[in-house]
């Protein structure tokens, strides 16, 4: 492989990784507070793809993006209210089954409403403009994704570390019960968490699908699971860790495809997960926790 091809693939990988990172943040935030793998997160991401298709059909793109993100956020909050809130005090297995149920429902709903045939993702001409540097060529979206990811993460870090809401979120993820006793409105914190997670999944969805051209009801499952792995890799509950995990998985996956092992690119993620959990279960930047009796 020549240096140009490697660079070209790395560029694609970084772009994919940026989108993964944005989705992974949603997992890491929710897991940090509720200790729940939000299996529906990948499907929220998929639904955002469909929302974009339909809103772009009738609105100019800046408004369409706004509408898509708004609906995605509302859907995320609604899912939390309906499916997770009633189970807050039940065993973890039931809430996880509920999350799987929501994922199942969203997939079947999407199949019913939009059929299982892949739908073409509309192109936003601005994002698709091609830039060339020497022999490398990339569309704007490829270049924009990593930059936007880093900007959003920086904003999120400011929100988490400097604002009152962020403080409440940190308190809730440290100790749910004590945070409640200290007068933190836990339901509001969880709503905000889901809103942020869904917003980032919506943005990630626009960036991801613009490069991939089509959406199916099942196109959220695997990216969703991979992003959870990214979150675990970076240390669950740790926002920059999730993004680094996303970049890592995105780059390695793209390189595996480039080397001709495309069937193993999905399997690699899970091998990484299992190895990571065995070697360093807390992830790259995670904190160690002890189980209390």
């Amino acid at each position, binding site marked *: 492989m020549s240096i140009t091809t490697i660079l070209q693939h790395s560029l694609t990988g970084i772009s994919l990784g940026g989108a993964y990172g944005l989705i992974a943040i949603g997992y890491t935030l929710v897991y940090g507070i509720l200790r729940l793998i939000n299996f529906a997160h990948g499907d929220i991401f998929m639904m955002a793809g469909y929302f974009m298709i339909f809103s772009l059909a009738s609105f100019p793109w800046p408004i369409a993006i706004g509408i898509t993100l708004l609906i995605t956020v509302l859907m995320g909050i609604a899912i939390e209210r309906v*499916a997770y809130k009633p*189970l807050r005090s039940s065993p*973890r297995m039931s809430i996880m089954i509920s999350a799987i149920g*929501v994922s199942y429902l969203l997939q079947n709903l999407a*199949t*019913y409403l939009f059929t299982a045939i892949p739908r073409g993702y509309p192109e936003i001409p601005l994002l698709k403009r091609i830039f060339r540097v020497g022999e490398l060529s990339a569309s704007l979206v490829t270049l924009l994704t990593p930059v936007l990811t880093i900007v959003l993460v920086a904003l999120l870090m400011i929100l988490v570390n400097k604002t009152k809401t962020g403080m409440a979120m940190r308190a809730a993820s440290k100790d749910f019960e004590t945070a409640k006793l200290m007068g933190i409105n836990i339901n509001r914190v969880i709503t905000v968490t889901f809103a942020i997670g869904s917003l980032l999944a919506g943005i990630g969805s626009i960036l991801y699908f613009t490069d991939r051209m089509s959406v199916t009801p099942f196109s959220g499952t695997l990216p969703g699971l991979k992003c959870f792995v990214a979150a675990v890799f970076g240390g669950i509950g740790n926002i920059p860790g999730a993004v680094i995990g996303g970049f890592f998985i995105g780059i390695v996956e793209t390189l595996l495809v480039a080397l001709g092992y495309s069937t193993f690119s999905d399997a690699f993620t*899970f091998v990484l997960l299992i190895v990571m959990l065995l070697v360093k279960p807390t992830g790259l930047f995670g904190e160690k926790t002890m*189980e209390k009796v």
Partner: protein
Amino acid sequence: MRRSRNTVLSVISAGVFLAILYMLNMNRAGNGMLISIMQKSAIFALVAVSMNLLNGFTGLFSLGQAGFMSIGAYTTAILLIPVQSLDGVYYMNGINPGIRALKVFLSALPPWFQSVYPFMALIVGALFAAVIASIVGVAVLRLKSDYLAIATLGLSEIIRALFSSPQLDGITNGSYGLNKIPAFPKMFGGLVPPIITPFIVSAVCITLIVLLIRSSYGRAFMAIREDEIAAEAMGISLFKHKSMSFIISSFFSALAGGMLAMYMRSIEAKTFSITLTYDILLIVVIGGIGSVTGSVLGAFLVTASKEWWLRFFDQPLELFGWDVPLFRTGFRMVIFSILLMVVVLIYRRGLMGTNEFSWDRIFGRFKWKRRKVQGGGS
């Protein structure tokens, strides 16, 4: 007295069920759909019970069922595809010469061997899955609750990716899948016709699982489910019992996977995707997590309503000249997922909760009703 009454009732109902099956066997022509749905239910009942052993009785939330089923299905299929059809099945890439030689050798063995061969193929597939489970279990079972779930889910995806990879073309036929798999064999020299075989195999396996659950091992599993740390303090070896449950569950899942291959006659890696695990989880949840009879009942109800009773949701419906708007392809599954959510959120126990079906309970309910009626009269 009551015990013998219950035994008699159980034997009678099993006999009635068998008689119905034999009757269906006589009138195969008109009942093709019913038979096929019941066979599928019996296979899914076995997977659901084996998943329940792990999730409901041992408290290990595992989502790797589809992966182990695919191991069983592929092994059984490769062993069973007749030698003369091999070239037709592997028309793209050719078959691994070692496997062909083995199959040619096996097909030359005497008739008594050929009659038990399909069952041996099932067991070989199941053992293969059990070996893989025992190796993987060492690593995976150290994980707790949701990490275990996602790791086993990942494991089943890894297995699927391996089976559909071009590197294994000579064995699994890669993404083309396998077909021309022989249907169910007859048992006991024709005493049990082919149609009834899956029911017998499932029933035997489920009985074995029930015996296991009732043994001291089963009680150890349940202790682990209730409280891992307390169980360990009572001297139950966590690793030993967890891996035992995991291996046995994988064994029976793979056996059911092998039967699924015989049932479907052709398999491909896509059949065993995450959705299949979710389908089985749905059966377990609706039946009641921690109830064997619930899982069996759930398997029959869910499969029957999915493939048969709720079919009309997928067809356009016209009522008195008015087109009911919602009815079209896919609506059935939406209804189904809503049903699952209702069970999860409101009716959390499922059909049976953690109880088992028992005649005493049924009679007790009748007595209770009668007393209530009498009380109302006086």
